């Protein structure tokens, strides 16, 4: 126990400030202000791997390390789409996952946001569209924000999530201000 406590004290707080939203990642019109207020600072994300190579998953895991500390912003991953406000979808949507992805989307309550992740989620990537893959996530369910990269860095994924949570063109909206406050408070 003593060694554990000493290690915690030795490391201290490793968390860095979050990145700002990036409008270039947006693919659909932003949600209305009142909706964003509801989602606000307690966003729940359900991740769906729709056939990725597992590269994107490695970087999603990194979001919860003490350095990116996504949960410190009030954004956390939940175990069921029924508890989620946002779906974070990776992969070139394999046809074997198409029904599961559609059902997950249907099970997510309104209002909901979808962030497509990685080159595969954006366009189908190197796997493209074929007998086994549908290609971009937007070919199967509506997408609000698409984050390219193979895999996208944790910073880019955070930017994608934060962009979906801000109003179009509004860099100083509720969440980004609040998140920088959260960053400062650390």
């Amino acid at each position, binding site marked *: 126990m003593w*060694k*554990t406590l000493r*290690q*915690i004290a030795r*490391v201290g707080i*490793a968390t860095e400030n979050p990145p700002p939203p990036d409008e270039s990642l947006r693919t659909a019109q932003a949600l209305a202000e009142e909706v964003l207020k509801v989602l606000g600072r307690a966003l729940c994300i359900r*991740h*769906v*791997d*729709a*056939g*990725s*190579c*597992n*590269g*994107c*998953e*490695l*970087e*999603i*895991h*990194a979001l*919860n*390390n*003490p*350095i990116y500390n996504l949960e410190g912003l009030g954004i956390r*991953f939940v*175990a*069921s*789409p029924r508890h989620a406000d946002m779906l974070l979808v990776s*992969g*070139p949507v*394999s*046809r*074997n*996952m*198409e*029904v*599961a992805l*559609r059902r*997950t989307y249907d099970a997510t309550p309104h209002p909901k946001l979808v962030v497509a992740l990685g080159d595969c989620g954006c366009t189908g*990537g*190197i*796997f*493209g569209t*074929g*007998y*086994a*893959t*549908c290609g971009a996530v937007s070919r199967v369910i509506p997408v609000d924000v698409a984050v390219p990269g*193979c*895999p996208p*860095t944790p910073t880019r994924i955070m930017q994608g999530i934060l962009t979906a949570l801000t109003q179009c063109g509004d860099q100083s909206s509720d969440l980004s201000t609040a998140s920088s406050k959260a960053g400062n408070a650390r």
Partner: protein
Amino acid sequence: MPLRTWWGSARELAGAPRARLLAVAPESWREVMQDAAAGGAPLLALWAGNGAPHQRAVCAALMGDAGVLVIWLPVGDGGEYPGIQDLYPAANRMQRAAADLTGIRSSDPDRRPWLRHSAWPADAWPLGSPSMPPPVSPPPIDDYAFVRVLGEGVHEVAVGPVHAGTIEPGHFRFSVVGEKVLRLEERLGYAHKGIERRFSELGLLEGHRLAARVSGDSAVAFSWAYCQALEGMAAHDLPARAPLLRALALELERCANHLGDLGAIGNDAGFAFGLAQFSRLKEHLLRATLQAFGQRYLLDFIVPGGTRVDLDARGADALDEAMTLLSREVPRLRDIYEEHAGLRDRFAGAGIVTLDLAVRLGLTGLAGRASGQAFDLRVDHPWPPYAGLSVKKCVQSGGDVLARVTVRFDEVRESIRLVRRILSDLDPGAHVIPMPDPDPGVFGVGLVEGWRGPVFVALEAGEGGRVRRCHPHDPSWQNWPVLEHAIIGNIVPDFPLINKSFNLSYSGPDL
């Protein structure tokens, strides 16, 4: 007769060191397999398709004492060959996947589809026909014939393909009494992306990019195995610096994955401190990798003829600093893990795979070494530069979660040593040289010890610098069925922990 005799009549194969190809007649196929199984030669892979030369065939790769023996059996239009599931239980799913993709079937009784769910019809074969019927969207729901367990109080728990955590898609069907697991049956294939068909649409000199994305967490291992096959086929020698840079990348990949797993396994036993600490260390390692090679995960590092980028002095310093950090902090955390009574209680005795079971079922790689199978390609079948690095094999005999954790700790220490050794061994020179296309019809194999286990690639060159056929093989093929045994008699809430201690790939074997 011993496998050695068959080895003697086989011809040399390009790529991996000491690899040979043996073409057999239908009556000898089973005979070779029986001799191999009797001699304890593990099955590395089984696949089908237009094998070398261009013909319908089924192939199996065996790891014999003398080297890698690829058995090649031409299959007639009937498309059936004698199954080997009785000799190699792990062949079951490989045979079924081969049938789904090519129509070439084994004679074994389990004819359920494996990779084909319902996205394409049973009489269309992605690797057998130039065009596939247009897909129906969404595909119809398919009804997979799970094995049912009957009896008083037995019920089923179905999990997946969308899981509660950030993991890949797969379905687990538990038959339980109370909280005790009587049987687990896995249903995979959800991440099937048509990789093998996609390979044949690519040039030989671009296939390494797809190979790296067979299983993103093993990108270095797969792209190296692919390039090893390709470079052997083109009879192309690498500059001395290239294999060392590749080994550096492979050890960084091993280290990063082990650190991630050590944290996640601790977390699954309720010790969130472990996840926070190890994920922080992993992040430092990834940032050093970014500084050294321009990517956090090295999906585009290994290219035919060498590596995409060189390592400069600044990058070497970043890696050296990361190794200093790890060699200071990992032993501290190991101490904490070892002294933590709660962790020990969860780790020890959970998900046991005995050596006897491991050998019978063909458990391989890291999990195999945790069950007393002292085999590591870097030591037992080294490829350049590993023969010169005198790798220490890390073996445990417990076969439980604790043993798999201990092997990871030992391998992290060894990888740190190897990274430092390579950094000091590196001589200046070219890191890549131009690569010619191999001749059409040439066949080669690649074999690399990835962090999870042996990664195998079989590659055949086509006309005009194209890939004719490529089969990339992840060790998870062998280890998934063993997980079904490891969980028997354990309680359902221990499944995430036991599963994580294997941390198998879904994308890798789903292809």
